[in-house]
């Protein structure tokens, strides 16, 4: 089993996300994380899916996704083939802020992005392993809440959805 990132370029069509996720559900495969956003191209959406599967499975999944009528193209990559980040937010009570916390924030190069009377929110961006490490460190400081985004990714290998669209067969 390997961790893969699938980048799916789709038309902006109601239900497209459902059509893609049921491909995983039907095969009993868990999606580790999923994010959807606009892409560089007007009107084309980009869905980033993180999944842990075998090589046979990732090939099969990508083909099934690409078979969906409103999917333009689906590419899959191993972790070493993508640049990726996840953003994490940590909510700490004001009274647990002490030099220990300050040290941790400095070490991780994290930021306090909100300060309220009762709590602060710390933001830290990195790979899952890093945001998880900070989570473990902050837990003893009465961490109130934790939230992490799905992966956003840019592929290293060169490909162009625009070129694909221009190239009519």
């Amino acid at each position, binding site marked *: 089993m390997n961790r893969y990132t699938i980048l799916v370029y789709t*038309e902006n069509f109601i239900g497209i996300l459902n059509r893609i996720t049921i491909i995983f559900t039907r095969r009993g495969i868990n999606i580790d994380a999923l994010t959807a956003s606009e892409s560089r191209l007007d009107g084309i959406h980009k869905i980033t899916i993180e999944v842990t599967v075998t090589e046979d499975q990732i090939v*099969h999944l990508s*083909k099934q996704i690409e078979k969906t*009528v*409103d999917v*333009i193209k689906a590419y899959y990559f191993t972790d070493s083939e993508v640049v990726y980040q996840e953003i994490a937010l940590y909510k700490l009570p004001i009274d647990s802020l002490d030099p220990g916390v300050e040290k941790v924030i400095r070490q991780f190069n994290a930021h306090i992005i909100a300060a309220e009377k009762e709590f602060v929110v710390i933001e830290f961006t990195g790979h899952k392993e890093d945001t998880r490490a900070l989570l473990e460190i902050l837990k003893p400081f009465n961490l109130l809440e934790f939230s992490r985004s799905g992966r956003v990714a840019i592929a290293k290998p060169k490909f162009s959805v625009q070129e694909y669209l221009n190239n009519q067969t």
Partner: protein
Amino acid sequence: MIRGADIVVKSLIAENAEYIFGYPGGAIMPVYDALYDYSDQIKHVLTRHEQGAIHAAQGYARVSGKVGVVLATSGPGATNLITGLADAQIDSTPLVCITGQVAAHLLGTDAFQETDVVGLSMPGTKWNIQVRSVEEIAPAIAKAFHIAMTGRPGPVLVDITKNAQVEFGEFNYVPCLRIRSYRPYVRIDQKVIDAAAELINTAERPYVLYGQGVVLAGAEEELKAFLDKTGIPAASTLLGSGALPQDHPSYVGKLGMHGNYAPNLLTNKCDVLIAVGMRFDDRVTGDLKRYAKQAKVVHLELDPSEIDKNVKCTVAVQGDCKTSLAMLTQAVQTNSHPEWMQKFRALENEEKEAVIANDLHGTHGGLHMGEVIHLINQFKEDDAILVTDVGQHQMIAWRYFDYKKTRTQVTSGGLGTMGFALPAALGAQLHDYKKQVICVVGDGGIQMTIQEFGTIMQTKAPVKVVLLNNNYLGMVRQWQQLFFDKRYSFTELENPDFIKIAEAYKIKAKKVTEREDLESSVAEMILHQGPYFLEVVVEKEDNVFPMIATGCSVEEVRLS
């Protein structure tokens, strides 16, 4: 400006739809109201259940090569289509289903007869869409027909809210010719063809497996030309039957769990396996770990997601097999394989002695299903269409029916939908009243959609229905006998008087229990002008052989 409902009907007419199979209800009533004005341009068939409508549309689509059109209301009308959608999806049958939906402002409020049919049908459709305003109707229907029919065909559903049906809009039909995210065909690379030809030319024991893809691509002549030039033995899948006439010298039989002895056994003896328009279904391959491991595999397939899915291939020829077969025929050398072919013929004789002789020429005891099919062969036209349900009768009819023409095989293959045959036969018959449509069913399956006798009565479709009655859910019983210690758990049926039922629907009916009455009765049925129902009481505990049990290898095909 015309109503949305008129736009629906005019769009269907613009797509040259000949028939609509449907059932009215609240949320689709405006479309039904519009249909009233167009009965000279498009025919509507009122079935007795929405499942009957969609199976009839499937039967129509399978024999005509055109899109089958279905019309149903929201809620239960739409959910009754689900089985047919799943069936059409797995068997690649082009359908456009139009369902009514509650008005847009009521969506998500649990309104009367509201159901999320787009959500429900998503896994069972090639594409679906909900239309909520009048201007979206014609483009959605145009897109639906394009998607249903092109590439690997499949069912499409268009859900139209009631407000869209009653709003007024302009009608200017523009057929959909391309969708930028959807590339159903690819250019075939000559290099790949050359690589495939190289494998085929150097093969000593090449073997062709063909499936419904040949029929869907209209590549029957191309397949024949390829086989004529190469002399390679060729076997058919369930849905491929008819793509090649069975008297063609290359034809060696049928594949799969209840296919023929030689084609299964020798799969593990060939050196190059050439699969054309087939998807290596588990009912064809048996245990994949022991399937054709010795062979190099050439796969001619339109759908890229089928390539390497079940069987890894050496050369993948992705594209329309009408084109790829023609290119391949150009590239290969003229050849013949008499010794290899002889191996098939020898095993064929073994099967004839061990199974077929008794199946077709019973002399004592109960009637065999095979005897009935054998007699049908004697009286049928070459282009007669065989429609079957699911179970023992389906396998026996498929094994023994003499397929001579393409698009004469209509059955529920991938999904195995009991109840499919009776409505599908009706749809097949409506495409051409002059053709013989023979519907072979079991006593289990016919009762799942027996209400469609009503539609046969109303349309006067001259379908010949042959009920092979063994008072059992026969295929399940066979498995119980072989694998569950003869524990016949809930498979024996207490059946009604089928003759009375058929006669109640004004269908001429006859029951045969004795061997000596069979031939004349089959002849009488085939020659009869209108619809005919023939019930044949067959041996209660007959089994279908050869058989590859679940989990076994194709080599372990057994004759008894």
